[in-house]
């Protein structure tokens, strides 16, 4: 009898231990123990070739499409952010290869967000490139408090909680055959000293059930989130950061830092398709916050004719802004803060409340894509001080101050003569071509398959020349 009791206890213990062991194995599969900083560097090293393979179950893929279609039926846009679980395998030419299980996947962006698959008139399944985001820290459907939830909530990959994937969309029927435009432009910004995202590129495959589809070359872009802030700014004593706003045009209303403020600032409510020109990204007080003192003060200070130069320097990182204006003028993206009140973040430093502008979205740059220059010369002929600045109160104000205008010209000249050069761009396009073009063609990837530097030689040379001429003309006039 005693033997039976002991045996039973031993068996139960063994079962419990085995059960715990299995459970730990189940949980451990979510853990990413890799060296994050090393992976971050590899990911954003543009000389390293890399692929992401993203595997959906058929059920998850169908749910992704269904959710997007339902959102479209309600709001006329696909901006549904419902997360679906995917497995992600990363491989690079440094020998790194690993798989992360149950990563969150959602589509992203406004103009480049697509259904990844549609069915056409003849019943044919059509794949479509779409921009998307992987959320390594997505907790999916695991209840709060479970081990899975806690592990996933803190999971990172590449030293990032999330990673954005953007494809080079066609403009007026033509692909950007250079394919590096976004990543290269972001690199120029960082080289110029601007706080900007890290970006790189590589191949993406989607696997749905038994089907694998080459989704083409994507740009991998570091999100502007708490991880990003931690990389570039100091937090306060309790590791909190200042307010971060994402500024984008909404329904063709530009997100200039102009009066009136009205109802332009708020917290987006994605499920209801409610979006603000200035959408608070953090410190939201569980979505209930209604005061936006720093941003309102910034707008009012800029608008106030009595504001002194010194006051401007208090509320705004002017040097950073001038750097951004100068390098962006060379990059020639007109869908930006300066010319379109779009595609930037405003961060208020935690101790000083001083604003720093952080630009994003550079796929239409460097002589490619949609431009406000209707002549199809991609701003090459624009004066460095253009009348178009009159619509932008902040730029108009800053560049009307002689000292700041002189510094802007100085930065422009420095960047034009040191950073802004076609040769490295061409070399990088050639490297991309060598690494990927054969595969793109043979595997019939989506997007551009033939890689070349398109009109970039002309753009770089003509832009630099006209900018230097414009600088000289203004200095002569002074």
């Amino acid at each position, binding site marked *: 009898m005693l033997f039976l009791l002991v045996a039973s206890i031993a068996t139960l213990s063994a079962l419990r231990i085995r059960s715990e062991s299995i459970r730990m194995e189940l949980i451990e599969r979510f853990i990413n123990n890799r060296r994050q900083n090393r992976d971050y560097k590899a990911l954003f090293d543009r000389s390293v070739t890399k692929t992401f393979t993203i595997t959906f179950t058929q059920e998850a893929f169908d749910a992704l499409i269904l959710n997007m279609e339902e959102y479209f039926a309600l709001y006329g846009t696909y901006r549904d952010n419902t997360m679906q679980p995917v497995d992600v395998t990363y491989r690079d030419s440094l020998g790194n290869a690993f798989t992360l299980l149950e990563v969150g996947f959602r589509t992203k962006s406004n103009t480049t967000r697509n259904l990844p698959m549609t069915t056409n008139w003849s019943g044919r399944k059509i794949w479509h490139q779409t921009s998307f985001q992987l959320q390594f820290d997505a907790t999916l459907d695991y209840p709060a408090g479970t081990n899975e939830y806690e592990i996933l909530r803190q999971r990172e990959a590449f030293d990032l909680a999330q990673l954005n994937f953007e494809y080079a969309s066609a403009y007026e029927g033509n692909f950007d055959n250079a394919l590096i435009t976004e990543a290269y432009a972001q690199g120029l910004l960082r080289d110029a000293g601007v706080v900007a995202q890290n970006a790189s590129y590589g191949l993406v495959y989607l696997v749905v059930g038994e089907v694998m589809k080459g989704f083409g070359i994507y740009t991998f872009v570091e999100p502007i989130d708490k991880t990003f802030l931690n990389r570039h700014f100091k937090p306060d004593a309790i590791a909190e950061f200042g307010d971060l706003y994402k500024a984008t045009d909404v329904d063709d209303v530009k997100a200039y830092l102009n009066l009136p403020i009205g109802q332009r600032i708020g917290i987006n409510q994605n499920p209801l398709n409610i979006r603000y020109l200035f959408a608070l990204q953090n410190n939201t007080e569980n979505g209930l916050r209604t005061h936006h003192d720093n941003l309102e003060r910034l707008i009012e200070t800029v608008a106030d004719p009595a504001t002194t130069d010194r006051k401007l320097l208090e509320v705004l990182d002017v040097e950073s802004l001038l750097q951004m204006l100068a390098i962006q003028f060379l990059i020639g993206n007109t869908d930006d803060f300066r010319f379109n009140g779009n595609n930037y973040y405003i961060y208020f430093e935690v101790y000083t409340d001083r604003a720093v502008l952080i630009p994003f979205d550079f796929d239409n740059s460097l002589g490619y894509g949609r431009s406000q220059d209707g002549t199809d010369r991609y701003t090459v002929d624009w004066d460095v001080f253009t009348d178009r600045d009159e619509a932008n109160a902040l730029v108009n104000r800053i560049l009307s101050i002689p000292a700041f205008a002189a510094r802007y010209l100085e930065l422009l000249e420095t960047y034009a003569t040191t950073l802004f050069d076609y040769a490295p761009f061409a070399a990088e396009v050639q490297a991309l*071509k060598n690494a990927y073009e054969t595969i793109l063609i043979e595997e019939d990837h989506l997007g551009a398959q033939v890689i070349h530097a398109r009109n970039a030689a002309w753009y770089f040379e003509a832009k630099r020349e006209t900018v230097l001429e414009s600088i000289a003309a203004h200095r002569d006039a002074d």
Partner: protein
Amino acid sequence: MIRKPLLALVFLLCVFLASCAVTTSQTITTPTTTTTSSDPTASTTTTTTTSAPAEASYDALFDNTNFKRFTIRFSMANFNKLIEDMENYFDAFGSYRDNTIQEVDILYEDGRGAAVELYEVGFRTKGNIFSRVLPIVRNEQGETIGYQQVSFQLEFNETFRHPEASTQYKELKNRMMFDLEQLNFKFIRAFDSAAVTELVAFDFYREIGLIAANTSLAIIYFDLEGVIVPYGLFSVIEPIDDEFVKRYFGKDEFGNMGDLYKCVWQNFGPADLKNDLNPDEIGVSDYMAGYRMTYQLRTNKNKSDHSVFKNFLQKLNAKTVPNYASVLSQIIDMDSWLKALAMGFLVGNPDDYRSDANNYYLYFYPLSDGLYQAVYLPFDNDQALGVGWNPFGNYGIDLNVWNYQPAQQWIGSSSDLPMAYNILAISSYRTQYENYLLAYSDPQTGVFAYQRFYEEYVVARDLYEYELNLMNHLGLQNFSLNDRSMPAEQYFEQKIQSVRTQIGNARS
């Protein structure tokens, strides 16, 4: 009746044979594809060994030495819908000019090795009251007993019923092929056994520096769910639309372009450019209303108030003002217009502005000071160079260089065509026009030369005649320089002689 799979097999075999028969440099091959996934991460120094696939490029499309073939795939439902819509339109308005668009898939192949499929392309028939017919032939019982050629248009950027902002809408709206949003296909008329008449006529305009549609040839198949219809040889013609304006004229700093009008003889009469405009003659045509405007706005449809055009008419017709010649030079791109008048006279299209107040576009090019200059853009040259409609007799060879009566009495007299005859009444312009005529018809250096026609003819014949015969295509199968309304060489010789003699006599 041949069973469909067998027919398809025979078709594919024949097409293969036909492809092999094309000269060696023109052999069409289908690119092989592989599903094997390669690993780009294996090495950072991977070298490219696969050559890029031939592209369906604009240049390849309009390279006349490049063999081209389009296969247009309909579902039977869509093909029947196309016919039903055309018949309903006929019942309502007495013509088949229904522009309802049907979905097709297309396969483009060319002699450079391109083989490009494009799905969900828009298809509609094209042509005027007389030339637009059903693509099928019915017997008296209404049964389909065959097919017939009709001109058509492919619309690569058609969005069908997809809602705006949907993935399909965004992708289709933004889509181009050959760097074009649309492409026109015009069947070769039975009377044009040389096949290249329209192509060469357009090329003449382009070679003297005028802006005119790019043109080439292609062989067409319809694929009706496996039933292959060898649909014949067609001219492929660049459409004159906003893309055309952008390509040739550009846009201003703010992305604006001028107003473009298609000017054709329609319900309200000839497009004579007299200053007696009926309000219903000008605007954006709505084909479902059953009639077309004479002056059809093709750009700035939502913002133009037609004032530029009306102002142009007013000034063109105010010939009593003291400085009229100067006014004309301000409102018309005079040099290009005088060139067009000269080349038009040589080409001898009786259905153009000067002869018939028909078939041209006017683009109002914005000048820097807020003014506009009209640029004349010819189109529809299939009846020219000695073939087709012959209202003047002898294909217009003997027409007076300076003045002749219009092709149709409803127009009135030559003085009812102000853009031609108000200009030619001014001696300096008339002299310039004569000089262009002499230059273009110069036996040694002139652009207007039979040799050019002959060379294009030989190229086209060698590329297409074999397959047209092999597959028993509709329309033209056997090429001939002489078995046309008038032998081509005769037209060129006599036209050149007539023009040079008239001017020579006048000047001596």
